[in-house]
């Protein structure tokens, strides 16, 4: 019986996803965990995992390797990288700051939910809402008692993302990745004007732009960028947390394997 020929794209994706997972797990297994001050590994490990998951989810969905959707994930990944790098500049204090800010946001959301319930106690979903409030409160109180949780409605770090990027010596990632990916993430005109509009060429219409639902071309470069950002995070982990791994970095995996290999046939070892 003939086996179905393997699809080279899906073979690549499967291998790439495994590479990202192995890179994360092998590194995390070498971390010297401090349970007494556990917020350091919780914050940094969580962000490292987040970075890996975003890279994986993008890779697994070739239909979103386009300018409509991929930038949303890439902007999130550049943000995660800047956040992780900034925390690792002073892990104890900044991990706690990061976690406490998140707990404060959760407390604020719970307050909104409770207000909603007070205003409409007979709502059809009141019971489900109460269950959600209880579950969220349990999660919050399991880490820091609600009564001790401050709510900060400013920036979690007290800095803008640009200032954080500057502080970690990576202003370039802010300028050339975070900023351009912020357009699609915030639905700004520099994105919408290109991806959601079709220029009318009729001079009588003053070259107005017509809103259209347009297909955007699929391009593996988006996955390459994600591989680069997750690799940067892994390198950061090795440098600052002392992790090690024999697994090749995702960006190396990407460029060294078909169908996206950058090596020409003449470059082969054989």
């Amino acid at each position, binding site marked *: 019986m003939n086996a179905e020929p393997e699809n080279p794209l899906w073979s690549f994706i499967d291998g790439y996803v495994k590479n990202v997972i192995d890179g994360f797990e092998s590194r995390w297994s070498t971390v010297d*965990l*401090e*349970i*007494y*001050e*556990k917020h350091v590994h919780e914050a940094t490990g969580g962000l490292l995992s987040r970075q890996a998951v975003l890279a994986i989810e993008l890779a697994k969905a070739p239909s979103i390797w386009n300018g409509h959707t991929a930038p949303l994930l890439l902007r999130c990944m550049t943000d995660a990288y800047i956040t992780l790098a900034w925390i690792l500049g002073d892990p104890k204090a900044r991990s706690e700051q990061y976690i406490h800010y998140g707990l*404060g946001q959760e407390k*604020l959301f719970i*307050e*909104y939910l409770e*207000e909603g319930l*007070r205003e409409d106690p007979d709502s059809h979903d009141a019971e489900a809402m109460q269950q959600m409030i209880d579950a969220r409160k349990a999660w919050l109180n399991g880490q820091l008692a*609600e*009564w*001790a*949780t*401050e*709510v*900060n*409605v*400013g920036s979690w770090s007290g800095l803008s993302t640009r200032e954080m990027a500057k502080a970690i010596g990576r202003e370039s990632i802010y300028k050339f990745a975070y900023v351009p990916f912020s357009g699609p993430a915030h639905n700004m005109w520099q994105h919408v004007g290109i991806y959601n509009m079709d220029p009318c060429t009729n001079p009588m219409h003053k070259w107005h732009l017509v809103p259209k639902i347009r297909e955007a071309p699929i391009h593996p470069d988006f996955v390459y960028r994600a591989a680069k950002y997750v690799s940067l995070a892994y390198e950061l982990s090795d440098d600052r947390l002392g992790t090690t791994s024999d697994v090749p970095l995702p960006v190396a995996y990407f460029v060294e394997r078909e169908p996206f290999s950058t090596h020409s046939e003449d470059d082969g070892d054989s």
Partner: protein
Amino acid sequence: MSKRRILEGHKQSGKRFIPPMKQLPGMQMTSYVNDMLPELIWIGLLNDRLDYVATARLVEKIVQVAAEAAPDAKGRNYALCSHLGALEDPQRAALLQTLDTEGLLTRLRLAIAPLVLLYEDFPMAFVGPPEDLISRETLLDRIYRAIDRHIDKYQTPGIILNGEMLLTRLVSGTIKFSADIKIPDFNAVLEAPESDEARHAAGFMRANALGEFGMLKVDNRWARTFWNTNYTLSACEFVHNSE
């Protein structure tokens, strides 16, 4: 009726909203789980092995002897293992001698064996290991269950552990209450745990323990060792299988 507002009682400071309790002057956070539990868990192991009354009697005896042996160290609270670990060699010897004479040393050694045998630098390691051989599996199981039982300060075992800090003060005569303070019936925690009196007593014990622990500024070396060692002693457990 006035409508309740979002973050009611919080004080705005720039972009931060400070909860009422954290607005109190000199407010200092003390973590029961992080810092107090490692200091008190030896009593938790006793509670698990004996019962609350027998444990209280044994702890009372330890406090009496330690207080007599080190009369100048009134600031110490001997419910905390680091404070017992601060006894000098002759004082330790006197304590062990008394416990042995009264037939209590074997009980103590058996109960706290997991701490003596599984952890480096346990402040009460001077008590020594039990004569009986206990398997590593059993030791791990006992410390696991003791932490699990005592980690919630709102449940009876955790309340009792907090109460031990007050008991030791009463025994050593280093605390006195003003006649104006209504002292709750501490027995209510065990006899009628759901009663208002029990809640009052539990709150009284927790507040006293947290307040005193914060003031004592106990060295956190043991707490750090305890938690970090725990991570090396057992594997992570998950509610959901991640596979």
